[in-house]
């Protein structure tokens, strides 16, 4: 039947849009630099136990507050811990928390948005109103409120950050799905008798993927900064964590004595977020057909 062929065509079209976009991305040098940067940091974090010269928690009272040297590339802190090792190990928490926070936001928001758009009516109204109330708060305020309920901690920070993004993604996805819902291929699928869930997953979502990916990449950079920020003020990762923001917070009393304790963890955050933003910009230019 021609209708089935049309549906297949549409799906192939959406994946070729994605692959066309990816090809364009590869030609964008800055974006590739970004991709390289973040991949490098991820690899470092994953291979931490093999690469790091010392353990992040080993204290050595003979080598307190040493400036960077051949023995300790990034210097040591007041307990004799090697900063270089701590930065490498901290990547696991700083980067991992960011990723999971974004996942929570994207998955939660997409689910809610799709449900709202697809079923419409009362379901849509309830979800939209609730999202509106959540979005009436400045996001950091909402973040702090959630942390005040759940108590400080890295897990809380991760969950709270993700939670504050759910309304945003829900609204975005709802708009996109509403636009897609009336397309011919969706109506055709319904006519054949495809179940609602199947229509949502196999037909509508792949078309939205490129848009969501662009936003998610930008949000990933923000997630890492927010995680570090919360840890810095004591509401995220707790001591003796090597999370980069926590390291910055710990080093606060030593700005005059041992500036290297602050410089390197922050530099790690900067490189991570810059790489992600370069990649994100490249993705947006490559995947958005109108931005040329």
């Amino acid at each position: 039947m021609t209708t089935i062929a049309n549906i297949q065509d549409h799906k192939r079209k959406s994946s070729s849009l994605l692959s066309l976009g990816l090809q364009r991305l590869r030609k964008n040098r800055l974006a590739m630099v970004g991709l390289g940067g973040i991949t490098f940091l991820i690899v470092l974090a994953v291979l931490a136990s093999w690469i790091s010269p010392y353990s992040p928690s080993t204290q050595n009272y003979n080598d307190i507050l040493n400036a960077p040297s051949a023995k300790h590339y990034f210097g040591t802190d007041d307990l004799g811990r090697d900063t270089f090792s701590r930065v490498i190990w901290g990547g696991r928490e700083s980067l991992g928390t960011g990723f999971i926070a974004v996942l929570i936001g994207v998955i939660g928001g997409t689910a809610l948005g799709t449900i709202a758009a697809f079923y419409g009516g009362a379901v849509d109204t309830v979800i939209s109103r609730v999202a509106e109330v959540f979005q009436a708060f400045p996001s950091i305020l909402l973040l702090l409120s959630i942390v005040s309920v759940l108590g400080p901690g890295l897990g809380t920070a991760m969950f709270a950050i993700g939670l504050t993004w759910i309304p945003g993604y829900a609204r975005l996805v709802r708009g996109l799905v509403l636009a897609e819902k009336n397309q011919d291929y969706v109506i055709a699928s319904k006519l054949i008798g495809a179940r609602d869930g199947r229509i949502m997953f196999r037909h509508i979502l792949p078309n939205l993927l490129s848009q969501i990916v662009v936003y998610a990449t930008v949000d990933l950079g923000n997630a890492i900064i927010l995680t570090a920020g919360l840890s810095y003020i004591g509401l995220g990762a707790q001591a003796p964590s090597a999370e980069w923001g926590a390291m910055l917070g710990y080093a606060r009393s030593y700005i005059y004595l041992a500036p290297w304790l602050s410089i390197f963890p922050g530099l790690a955050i900067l490189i991570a977020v810059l790489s992600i933003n370069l990649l994100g910009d490249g993705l947006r230019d490559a995947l958005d057909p109108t931005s040329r």
Partner: protein
Amino acid sequence: MGTYILRRIFLIIPVLLGISLLIFAIAKVTPGDPAAALAFPNTTPARIEFLRHQLGLDQPIYVQYGRFLWNAIHGDLGVSYRGSIPVLKALLDRLPNTLELTLAALAITIVAGIPLGVLAASNKNKLIDNTIMVTALTGLSIPSFYLGIILIIVFAVHLKLVSATGGPGLKNLILPAVALAAAPTAVMIRLTRASMLEVVSKDYVRTARAKGLKERIILVRHILRNSLIPIATFLGLLTGNLVVGAVFIEAVFARPGFGRFLVDAIIARDYPQVQGAVLFSACAFVGLNLLIDILYGIIDPRIRLEDKRVE
């Protein structure tokens, strides 16, 4: 015009109610018993019960919500767990410190961001455009507190130009304001550039050129004015986020501001203060956005007239 304003105000009320409900719910969900927290340690359960009755905690939930709302409207945000200071007074005391920081950062964002964005858009794809954009991207990627730390290390420790910690006065405002303003300025540059580029391709600009108007006049009267709308939206959102987001800078520079107030209250589990601060800033934020919406109505007549738009 009047109906537009009234309509906007009416739309706000359910949102404000929703916010108060959400904050009240958050407070109720938080673990810990307020009566036990306020009572002296080692009291008898009977005294705690008495305290609970005094605080109205034994009433049904909707009565408690009603009292909460009633008190809030009358400016009574409760009393702190630590030291029995009225919450509203405590946070109003800290607000000016944060406001001066926020205003300084806003000023920097506007004064530096918009011209640079215009510059970048006017020289699209040339070296100056690329330089500005890469700088903007870096400004976006650096955490504000890290920038603050770096600024302290360079200017206070090595160059000894300014002191590192906060105190009153303009001199102490520069470093924190710059650190706070970096990311918003970067966004402003990108936004201005994108907005201008979009406006420049519009028909009315073409018409103005075809009419033979001087380029400068076109730039100011047509291009800039129309680019201003997304910029104004951004500024509105930004202000709300800056007041609370300044908390990280306040931590770096040891400034006793509103953000620090909230964070300290959270760490100390001082729930009346947390609740009061959150309620206050949420309502202030909503009020600010209302003002901006009304301002839109004045600037752009189209918005006044087509208010039936779906948001």
